[in-house]
């Protein structure tokens, strides 16, 4: 067998495995919507928190530019989080994760977000922790994520409720994704044209 044929055969086999383990597109959209909802909302919240002070000395278009950066970053962050979950789905047994991807993935994102907010809420404590304390905090964050996954896995009702909620969130994609893409183009243009 020639090398090219071998590559084709192996590649096809890997692709087949991936297709089998990849979540359904609809499920990925639901989880992506959960990521987008949380990540965009958080970034917009803190943008609005800083905006009054920026308005003191930055002009309108500077503030629009900062908003564009936050939305472009939020889009990229959402994609990264989704990719992490998709990789997990491929790595973990199909029965455990892929088959319940919409609910499992969404609940993992929500649990991780809650933990992220709690870590921040300890008033800059994060930055004054040493490395061991920080790792412990991160490790502990796996507990609620793990617990919520188990609950979803064991409760069909919970799985259906979370799945339905995540599916409703897909409506937000029609707003946030175009906003993110437009912002990304804006940011790229600013840097190419060296407008700063």
């Amino acid at each position, binding site marked *: 067998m020639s090398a090219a044929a071998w590559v084709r055969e192996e590649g096809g086999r890997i692709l087949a495995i991936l297709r089998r383990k990849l979540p359904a597109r609809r499920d990925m959209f639901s989880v992506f919507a959960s990521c987008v909802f949380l990540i965009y909302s958080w970034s917009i919240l803190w943008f609005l928190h800083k905006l009054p002070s920026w308005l003191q000395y930055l002009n309108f*278009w500077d503030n629009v530019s900062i908003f564009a*950066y936050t939305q472009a970053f939020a889009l990229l962050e959402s994609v990264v989080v989704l990719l992490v979950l998709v990789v997990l789905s491929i790595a973990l047994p199909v029965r455990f994760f892929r088959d319940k991807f919409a609910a499992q993935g969404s609940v993992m994102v929500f649990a991780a977000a809650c933990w992220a907010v709690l870590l921040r809420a300890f008033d800059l404590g994060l930055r004054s922790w*040493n490395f061991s304390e920080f790792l412990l905090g991160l490790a502990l964050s796996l507990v609620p994520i793990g617990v919520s996954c188990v609950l979803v896995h064991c409760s069909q009702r919970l799985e259906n409720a979370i799945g339905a909620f995540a599916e409703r969130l897909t409506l937000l994609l029609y707003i946030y994704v175009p906003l993110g893409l437009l912002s990304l183009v804006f940011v790229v243009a600013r840097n190419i044209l060296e*407008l700063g």
Partner: protein
Amino acid sequence: MKSRLDRRGFLKLLPLLSLVPLLKGEHRAAAVTRNRSPGREGAPNVCIILFDALSARHLSLHGYRRETTPNLARFAERATVYHSHYAGGNFTVPGVASLLTGTYPWTTRAFHHAGLVVESYERRNMFRLFGDVYYRIAYPQNVWTNLMLHQFRGDIDVYIEPGRFSLADGTFYKLLSGDTDIAFRSLDDLLLRGASFPGSLFISLVNDVRMLGCEQVRLEEYADLYPRGVPRLRDIFFLFEHVIDGIIGLLKCVRRPFLAYFHLFPPHESYYPPHYPYSPRREFIGMFDDGWTPATKGVHPLSRSLSAESLNRQRVEYDEYVAYVDAEFGRLYDFMSESGLLDDSYVLITSDHGQLFERGVHGHDTPLMYEPVIHIPLLISKPGQRQRKDVRVPTSCVDVLPTLLHLTGQPVPDWCEGEMLPGLAGEAGDGDNDARSVFSVEAKANPEQSPLVKGTVVLIKGQYKLIHYFGYPEYESTYELYDLWSDPEELEDLYLSRRAVAADMQGELEGKLREVNQPYIS
């Protein structure tokens, strides 16, 4: 179906070009000026070394009881020492803007955290004014100064980013060098390292882990030399020794005549300190465990009410850090002396603001404008100067620019608000004008294009200092008057007992405020 763009399609797209100015926003970028004249033969160099947050009140050179600055004292023996020199404000932005433009913060409107000078002052800066003759170098180690200097970028020949000479630079804005100001505010200030909560939910955590790992590596690598951790500026870790080595390296090969502005971060406290805000080298730790505590001053109503014990401890650590900074300056001074740089250069040592450890306040993020936070050092060594000279009349950082222009034979623009510093131009016309008025402004709560309605403004005239607080609901329209000659610690408020002086100065200060607010009253 047509796949090529035809003429009609192209013409339809042309109006999109009109959006480019909108992408740019209002003009913030200075034009690049590269048509430089060759340097004037024999022109003296100008080297400004600014130590961020260095308070004159903590220098043994100025009588502080702790021996914090023996090397600055060595430099002072061949310099003119200004004993009553004042910053434009009590933090970096107004201080630096005033120094580099020769105008007060209410003119440049640079009085916000991370603020910038208004568009009309982007071309009214020291670098541009020296441009025809001098090779201009800027090294802003402070990231806020970096933002401001990016406004003047077109007037600077060699621009050195804050992370140069560092051990590790974890900032992201430098990845987007075409949009420094907005990229820094978005990525490094909002999304990944917000003052309270970062705007990024997850990636900021990853970044935190990255920076903690970086810090851990530095801690282990330099634990012997830096038991409190290496100095840190946000996400930039550095050794001050490397910074000084880098500056020495630059000075060895820079084209003459040059104008160099080195804005060095120490002895400013670390942002986001793990445990210690001040991180000197080991041999400086404990050198001021002398049990001394300064005079007790009451907690100010506008302060954060930190305890005296906490402030005294931090004062000790700051003094240790100043001593460390001074030791490194000593190496720089030795180089300048041995290389002959002091014989053909004006060398200035100064600061942008000071640091408070009293009245319930640590640092300089405060409405308070007492001496330790606005009284800054200024030492100027003229080419070949061998004798010390002392000047005790009040001077301001806005005086530095017109003075340097005058000394280097360049025209002084009429928009400069400063005066010629006494003691430099020779005997003729070297008047000690102790009747002149020096101002310092804290106004970060005000919009850029509005009258100042909340802040603290200081007027220093002769021996007296008037502080005016306005717009604070809990401390509305309050005045304090001090006689700095008889009461340098500002313990006795004379506002009610010296009515004539107070009334005069109050009238002048209020008049000045009306004058500077007038253009913004619609």
